[in-house]
């Protein structure tokens, strides 16, 4: 029996031995930085610098070729001149499992296309899988290997494949602040051998991974991507950030990863047929991944009826419009619910139909406990599929004690726990960018994220992410006999 996808790719995510090619005896080269980063990240396996003449690099014993390392190499990080790489790989004699070529100057430029084929052939002949070229590296917290300066140390549920290295860094750094935690991130560059589809197969089978995100410019094996996604039948949500969806974007992608992309119509079809979620921006990508990381899809009751609860009348109206365009109904409550809310005798200025607009004065009553009563009534009587609580932090400044914000979220969570699985709960923390407010937002977001609540910057972000969740739920719903 041939080894499973997990057996084949796990050594990439949990390497025991790492070879580094291109580090300098004087330090300062990118591979030296890589050595420092994986040591700081807690990599405990063997690191083998490969160097034609040096005996030692960064305090580690160096070897002349990949054939001379004490143990076979699970992962080789290669950043030397493009022209020297095939010889390096040929010398490995089948002792390397994964070689990631960081160097550029291959298929993304005309004169490098032949060289890329040569390197791919050398990798095949040497029995190894090639990742890249023209990429930045891998980030795998479970293996304690990273190409980035910072990134969460703990393993999470989000598996990423990125055809762009720089964007891969953005996803880790920005995602980290938002609360994303990863099962891995692989930058795949020109995909001379290992393709996004290979890694997609791994993440689909990997027990750590619950959500998959892909940044794709071109899928040379689009047919296989389609077949894998269709067979998976949306068992895990897959969010695709597709670059090159317009004619000019395609031209930019051709010079970035060196291959021509297909028709946008095919990508739209792919998403309709397989349930993968297509997004257009990095923000939407991170927002959708965060939504899937934190909330459990409810395919038996796809999200539609949404309650907006927070301070800001205009914000509520605009959000109602925006959500409606996405197919999320912010429908006014029925007479029963309105009557029950009216019985609470809330201060004037409070709107008790959906959207529920509560000025700060209302929200801070009884240190936020009034909000709990309101939310309880909404859940019991309004029965929404989603509740988005939005707080304009600027409106609280100088008027309330800081605990009010905490109390509000705590109240929402208590209500949430009384009605398990009934409604998705998301939080929007709006700020005007003023430094002290941003600081409070950051602290507050961290606390919310720790409780498993997805936090968004604006209503539109929450709306789009909720629409992604809805699309996933509907896909499963429509296909559940």
């Amino acid at each position: 029996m041939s080894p499973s996808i997990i057996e084949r790719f796990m050594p990439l995510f949990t390497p025991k031995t790492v070879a580094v090619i291109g580090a300098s005896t004087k330090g300062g080269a990118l591979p030296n930085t890589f050595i420092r980063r994986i040591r700081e990240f807690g990599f405990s396996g063997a690191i083998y610098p490969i160097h034609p003449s040096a005996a030692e690099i960064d305090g580690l014993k160096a070897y002349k070729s990949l054939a001379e390392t004490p143990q076979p190499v699970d992962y080789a990080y290669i950043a030397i001149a493009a022209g020297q790489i095939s010889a390096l790989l040929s010398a490995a004699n089948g002792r390397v499992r994964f070689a990631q070529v960081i160097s550029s100057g291959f298929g993304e430029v005309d004169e490098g296309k032949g060289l890329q084929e040569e390197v791919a052939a050398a990798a095949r002949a040497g029995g190894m899988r090639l990742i890249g070229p023209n990429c930045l590296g891998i980030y795998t917290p479970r293996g304690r290997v990273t190409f980035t300066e910072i990134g969460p140390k703990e393993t999470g549920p989000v598996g990423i494949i990125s055809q762009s290295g720089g964007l891969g860094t953005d996803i880790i750094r920005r995602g980290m602040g938002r609360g994303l935690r990863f099962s891995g991130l692989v930058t795949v560059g020109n995909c001379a051998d290992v393709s996004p589809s290979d890694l997609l197969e791994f993440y689909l089978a990997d027990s750590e991974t619950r959500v998959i995100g892909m940044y794709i410019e071109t899928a040379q094996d689009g047919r296989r991507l389609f077949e894998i996604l269709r067979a998976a039948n949306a068992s895990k949500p897959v969010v695709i950030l597709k670059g090159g969806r317009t004619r000019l974007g395609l031209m930019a992608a051709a010079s970035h990863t060196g291959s021509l992309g297909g028709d946008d119509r095919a990508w739209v079809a792919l998403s309709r047929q397989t349930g993968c979620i297509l997004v257009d921006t990095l923000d939407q990508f991170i927002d959708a991944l965060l939504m899937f990381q934190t909330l459990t899809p409810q395919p038996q009751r796809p999200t539609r009826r949404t309650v907006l609860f927070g301070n800001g009348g205009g914000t509520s109206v605009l959000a109602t419009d925006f959500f409606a365009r996405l197919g999320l109904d912010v429908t006014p409550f029925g007479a029963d619910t309105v009557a029950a809310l009216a019985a609470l005798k809330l201060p004037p200025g409070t709107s008790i139909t959906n959207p529920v607009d509560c000025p700060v004065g209302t929200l801070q009553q009884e240190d936020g406990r009034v909000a709990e009563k309101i939310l309880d009534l909404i859940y019991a009587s309004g029965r929404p599929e989603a509740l988005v609580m939005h707080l304009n932090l600027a409106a609280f400044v100088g008027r309330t004690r800081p605990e009010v914000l905490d109390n509000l979220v705590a109240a929402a969570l208590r209500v949430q726990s009384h009605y398990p699985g009934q409604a998705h709960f998301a939080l929007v923390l709006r700020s005007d960018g003023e430094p002290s407010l941003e600081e409070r937002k950051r602290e507050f977001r961290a606390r919310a994220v720790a409780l498993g609540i997805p936090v968004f910057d604006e209503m539109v972000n929450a709306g789009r992410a909720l629409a992604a969740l809805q699309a996933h739920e509907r896909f499963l719903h429509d296909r559940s006999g």
Partner: protein
Amino acid sequence: MNVISEARRHNRRALDEQAGKALLAEFGVAVPQSAMVAGVGEVDQKTKSLTFPVVVKVMSPDILHKSDAGGVKIGLKSAAEVESAIRTMMQHPAIAAARIDGFLIEEMAPPGLEMVIGGVRDPQFGPLVMVGLGGIFVEVLADVSFRICPITRLDAQQMLAELKGAAILKGARGRKAVSQEAIIEVLLQVGGENGLLMQHAADIAEADINPLIVSESGAVAVDARFILS
């Protein structure tokens, strides 16, 4: 007979209308009853099995747009009318100068809604199937939906549902509803698991059934064009 290898043997880059319809019929798509004649002499005999009115179309590898060249005449009620139509056609300069394979005589499809079903080969994803409402809907408004082959019945249903003009299928503006089931059948015959585009994925660069005329009860491929890869 394999119409594709036949066309390749004659170095043709496309299937002519008759061959295209034969290919569709092989996959179960309804096409009009027809007869092919070399010239006026065969008309009387060959139209005996057809129900009038009929349409006559010139068949020539040199003529791409038959209507523009004066090579299509509709609503002919008798063999005599067909003969006269063929004689008139042969006077047209574009037709007189062309290599003529013959003349295709077809029964007229019952009236209905004009739809378009097409196929195109994507370099990364392989065959895609397309559906749209005919006329200005497809040409001007580009109101079409695509799927990657092979499609399922649910895919086909969703393709129709996502057309902006979907309401027209249900009989908007006092018209009768057309058979969506019939359109879905043709979509599956063309783009389904064992459909035409999957079976001939390597050979077909583009396919175009335009129009597919859909009535309350069925759908007929009235014209078809296949470009070989």
